[in-house]
Structure formats: C-alpha cells, structure tokens
C-alpha cells in the first residue's frame, strides 16, 4: 500500500494538515506582526509545498480537508450577528452607506472588465476576480454561482485585504478622504476584514463603519455582480 492510497482513505489527514499549517502561519504572524505574513497565505504555501514534495495528490488532501469547508455556509450566516450589533449606526447613516458602497461596487466591476480586457484575460478569470473585494465566505459563494475558480477568488480577496492594510491609509490621504465615516466605509468595502483591522487603528467610528461595510458590500456584490456578468 503506498502513501497516497493510505492517506486517501484517512479521514483526518487533510484536516490535520490544514490545521497544523494554519497554526504555523498564525504563530509566524504573531511573532513578526507583518500584514503580508497572512496566516491563510502561509498555510496555503505550506500545504501546496507539502503536497508537491511528497507527491500526495490534491484530491487526497481534499477528501479530509473539505470537511472543514462544510462550515463555510454557517460561518457566513454568522456574519448577521456583527451586522445586527451595528444596526443603530446603519440606521443613522443609511444613505451614505448604501449609495457610496453601491457606487464602489459598480466601479469595481467596471474597472475589472476594463483591465482584464486590456490584458486579454478570459471571462473565467474576470468572474473569479469580480467578487474579490468582499469577505472570502461570501466571495466563494458568488464565484461559484458565476463559474469562477475558487482559488483565484481567494487570492484576489487576499491581495485586496493586504493592500488595504498596507497602503489603505496612504490612499486615504492621497484622495483626501478625511471624514471618519467615509474612511471606515472605504476601508471595509475595498479590503473587508483585513482593511477593518487597519480601520480599528484609525478610531472607533472608522472601526464600526468598516465592519458594517464588509457585510453590506458582500450583500450588494451578490446582487450587482451576477447582473453585470449577465450583460457581458
């Protein structure tokens, strides 16, 4: 019996490899505190290297690991809780939140269509990137509905998040976005949870607005993106 056959039968192999790799990523980030040392990113690199070196196939890994992704739907459902906790803030600024995020989502789709056309990328790549400014949980669902590639969507989501944390504050200054509510909405709608971690450093209003923007942008993207994709 070779290694691949044994591991393919194992229930726990994929889960243990996932969690162990994530733990390593988590510790590395805690030690060096750099945004680009994202635990998810590190764990992906570890797992892919492990599979390539040992010759164990992705399917073998997936068999156990996919049990973890069963929780993708429930964890997305859980995002209703932080949204509900921000209900008061949402009500007080409903116009600013909805209009600005709506225009943000439209410009995101428009820019991506332009850039992917300029680079001669095919539609599947475009559809994989279209949900990328929202939280991964919702982005994966949208990507799946459009027929995008999950892996590319997640990479896109991470590029957005890490960009938000690294250059977000610089861009806010460059575009002269000084209003605290506008700063929070800008970070949350463009860089989801990782951007929100930066918004927390800017202040309380920014943090509340940014975490609210994550969910509102997610829901708005669910509605806008398939509609835009249908026009293509």
């Amino acid at each position: 019996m070779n290694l691949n056959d044994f591991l393919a039968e194992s229930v726990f192999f994929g889960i243990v490899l996932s969690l162990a790799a994530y733990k390593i990523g988590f510790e590395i980030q805690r030690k060096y505190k750099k945004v680009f040392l994202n635990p998810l990113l590190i764990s992906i690199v570890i797992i892919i290297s492990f599979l390539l070196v040992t010759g164990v196939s992705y399917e073998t890994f997936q068999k156990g690991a996919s049990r973890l992704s069963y929780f993708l739907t429930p964890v997305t459902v859980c995002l209703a809780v932080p949204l509900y906790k921000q209900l008061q803030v949402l009500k007080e600024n409903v116009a600013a939140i909805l209009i600005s995020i709506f225009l943000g989502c439209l410009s995101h789709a428009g820019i991506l269509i332009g850039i992917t056309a300029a680079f001669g990328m095919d539609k599947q790549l475009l559809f994989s990137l279209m949900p990328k400014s929202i939280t991964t949980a919702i982005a994966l669902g949208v990507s799946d509905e459009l027929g995008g590639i999950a892996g590319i969507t997640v990479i896109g989501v991470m590029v957005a998040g890490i960009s938000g944390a690294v250059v977000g504050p610089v861009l806010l200054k460059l575009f002269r976005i000084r209003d605290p509510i506008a700063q929070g909405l800008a970070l949350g709608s463009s860089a989801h949870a990782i951007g929100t971690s930066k918004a927390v450093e800017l202040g309380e209003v920014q943090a509340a607005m940014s975490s609210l923007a994550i969910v509102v942008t997610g829901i708005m993207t669910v509605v806008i993106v398939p509609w835009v994709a249908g026009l293509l």
Partner: protein
Amino acid sequence: MNYIFQLALILGVSFVGELLNAVLPFPIPASVYGLILLFLLLCSKIVKLEQVEQVAGFMISVMPIFFIEPTVGIMNSYGLVKGKIAALFIAAFLSFAAVLAVTGLTAQAIMKFKNKEKGREHESE
C-alpha cells in the same frame, strides 16, 4: 449544552438558506440567504442575540481555516493562470484602489451635504 443549541440554530438557518437557493431563481448563494434570514430573525427579536452570539463569535474568529481547502485548489488551475499572474495582481490591486477611492469620496461628499443641512436647521431654530 447551550453551545450545541446555538450551533443547531445556525445550522438550521443555513439549511433554510440552502432550501431558498434551490427553490428561488436568483444567483444568490445559500449562505447569503441564510445571513439575511438570521439578520431579519434578530431584528424581529424572534431570535435573541444571546441565542447565537457565542458560537457565532467563535466561528467568525476562526473563519480563515474554512477557506484553506478551496484555496489550495488553485494547484489544479495553475495551467489557466500561468503567464497571467502579474496581470492578475495588477487587476486585483487597481480594482481595490478604485473601490477605496469611489466609496470613500462618495461617502465623504454625502456626509458634507448632511452636515450642511444640519447646520442650516440649527440656524433657523
């Protein structure tokens, strides 16, 4: 026991989300139906915050581990991405910057307008 009931409630809402995704003709993921449903249940006080809060908080705090498996799947799409990696990163970065600028500037303009209106109200009082 409390945690199990919280989890059961969240899974129950997820299940209804799946059902809506199967029955309704819109391209909305099951998870987003569930999110909206749970939000409405909380707003209408049918479900109380403390009936889901702890398990929801825990799940959100460990969320990235649920993304590992689908992301590793990029291994199998490497052929499709090969030679386009730089373009992908540029597209991802520029579209990020566009959202930040458009959302931020629009919100700022609306807030300025709102504050002016408020100022006028105070003057007339």
